[in-house]
């Protein structure tokens, strides 16, 4: 639902059903709401059968990559020769995204249930839920829920451990997360080898996002066909998605809609539209790492994986950042570049040096010392930073820069030409 607001009739409420209801956090409260029925069902199914259902449903990774979940599970060795692991990605750090936090705060048992089902499907005895260090409240709630579920005997032979992060966006990258769990610097790994072959502690591992796993119990209980049917535009994008809308809208919050839902309706209806006297200028639909859409593109974009690609962006994590006409695009793009420069792990040359240089150029433009050549330099730099590194943090820094210069070039030129007063000191 549009938590913290009242549910909007156009929402499709599945995952967010109990958002805002503290009773749903408790084991008893969750059981009352049909909790752990899906897990009971899964325990009567063969692992491969569970995977089939999830494959059939069309569920795709909700962390940002959109990789088909059932397919990912099927990469795990069928014959178990070594310990298998499941890692749950609760590192939610993509700017604009705040849905996993809500899932953990309000429906921790939904995550536990989905985790258990996934662990059975991939034959993992041990699962780690990697929660970012700043999520102190979700951590405490998950800890409590885990204790309750364990006491109620739900876990059986499975072990689920919470692993607290310590402030690193890059640990949301699946291979960096595995390194972080192993007690190392959160450096992404080169692939191959892939996690299903060589993952955490060198063992076959699957990493899934919180929202992805929260959907699994529903899929098992109500069937793959039910989930698949929820698709407004492209049959390859099914089910519901929690969109975290933030920035310049009247009612920011998490909204759950069916895949293919028009972005225009999300912004102007569900979120109550722009603030009084303001007009929509730009929107980033999938967290800061995807290209920025201008007003026209935003208002014609359908919110599913393919629809966003059609508009030259990506669905990503579904973190919708809205900029109205009061936003200084140049400043905000600089702030995003600075984010990536802070979060770079320092392995790859392009990312380590490029994110910092990009930030410096933008700061200089904002300080009134930019040159026209700086825009070409930024584009060239972004090109060097794209498609050449171990992970895509580097590409993610380039995305807002390239799309920003393309679609809001006049704002940059205004600073360079001195038509706009500097807002920073060199």
């Amino acid at each position, binding site marked *: 639902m549009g938590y913290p607001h009242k549910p909007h009739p156009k929402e499709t409420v599945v995952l967010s059903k109990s958002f805002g209801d503290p009773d749903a956090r408790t084991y008893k409260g969750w059981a009352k709401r049909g909790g752990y029925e899906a897990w009971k069902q899964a325990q009567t199914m063969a692992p491969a059968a569970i995977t089939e259902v999830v494959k059939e449903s069309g569920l795709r990774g909700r962390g940002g990559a959109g990789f088909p979940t059932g397919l990912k599970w099927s990469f795990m060795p069928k014959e178990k020769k070594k310990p298998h692991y499941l890692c749950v990605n609760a590192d939610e750090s993509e700017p604009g995204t705040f849905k996993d936090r809500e899932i953990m705060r309000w429906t921790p048992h939904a995550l536990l249930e989905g985790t258990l089902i996934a662990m059975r499907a991939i034959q993992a005895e041990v699962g780690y839920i990697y929660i970012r260090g700043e999520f102190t409240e979700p951590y405490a709630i998950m800890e409590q829920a885990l204790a309750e579920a364990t006491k109620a005997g739900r876990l059986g032979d499975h072990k689920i451990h919470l692993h607290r992060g310590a*402030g*690193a966006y890059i640990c949301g990258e699946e291979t960096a997360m595995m390194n972080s769990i192993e*007690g190392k*610097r959160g450096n992404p790994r080169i692939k191959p080898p892939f996690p299903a072959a060589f993952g955490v502690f060198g063992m076959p591992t699957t990493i899934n996002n919180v929202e992805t796993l929260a959907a699994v119990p529903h899929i098992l209980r109500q069937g793959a066909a039910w989930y698949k049917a929820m698709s407004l535009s492209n049959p390859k994008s099914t089910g519901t998605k929690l969109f975290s809308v*933030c920035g310049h809208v009247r009612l920011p919050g998490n909204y759950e809609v069916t895949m293919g839902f028009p972005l225009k309706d999300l912004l102007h209806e569900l979120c109550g539209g722009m603030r009084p006297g303001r007009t929509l200028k730009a929107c980033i639909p999938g967290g*800061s790492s995807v290209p920025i859409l201008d007003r026209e593109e935003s208002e014609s974009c359908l919110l599913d994986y393919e629809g966003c690609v059609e508009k030259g962006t990506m669905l990503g994590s579904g*973190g919708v*950042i809205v900029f109205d006409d009061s936003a200084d695009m140049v400043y905000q793009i600089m702030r995003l570049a600075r984010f990536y420069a802070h979060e770079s792990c320092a392995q790859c040359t392009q990312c380590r040096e490029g994110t910092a240089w990009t930030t410096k150029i933008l700061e200089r433009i904002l300080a009134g010392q930019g040159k026209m050549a700086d825009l070409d330099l930024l584009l060239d730099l972004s090109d060097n930073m794209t498609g050449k590194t171990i992970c895509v943090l580097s590409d993610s820094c380039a995305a807002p820069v390239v799309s920003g210069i393309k679609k809001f070039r006049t704002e940059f030129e205004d600073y360079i030409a001195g038509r706009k007063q500097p807002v920073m000191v060199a």
Partner: protein
Amino acid sequence: MSAVATQEDAPVFTGKTLERLQQILTRYPTKQAALLPALWLVQEDRGWISDRNMAEVGEVLGLTPAYVKGVVTFYTMYHQHPVGSNFVQVCTTSPCNICGAEDVVKALLAHTGAKELGATSPDGKWTVIEVECLGACGFATPVLVNDEFVESVSPEKVPELVKRYK
């Protein structure tokens, strides 16, 4: 000057803390994997992680001090020097930035007496820093005061917030 070891010098992993670490160690197949949790235990106990603490953690887990230091300096939530008793983290990444996060920072610096980012206030009670996305963008501006996550802070709400922690 007394030769007695100060509180700071005393080992962290004794008694209850050691018990907790031993419990944590059972979660992982390697000792190294307990490093991040161990560092959290140190910070919980001492408020920050000194070079000496790093050496102790290394010894307990069979890692070199340089290795531990490499990990501590990677993760921004570990403090490598003492901070004010109220450590305040304010998100100023774009989604919060366009909702006035920088004004919240200014208000906090003024009302806590910390004056500058990263500096500790004269009464030792406050340190304010800017951090990257805290994952509560719809509740701009979120602020972490030690372990307490406060949503929707605006400059107007700052005086009341500061008073609450005095």
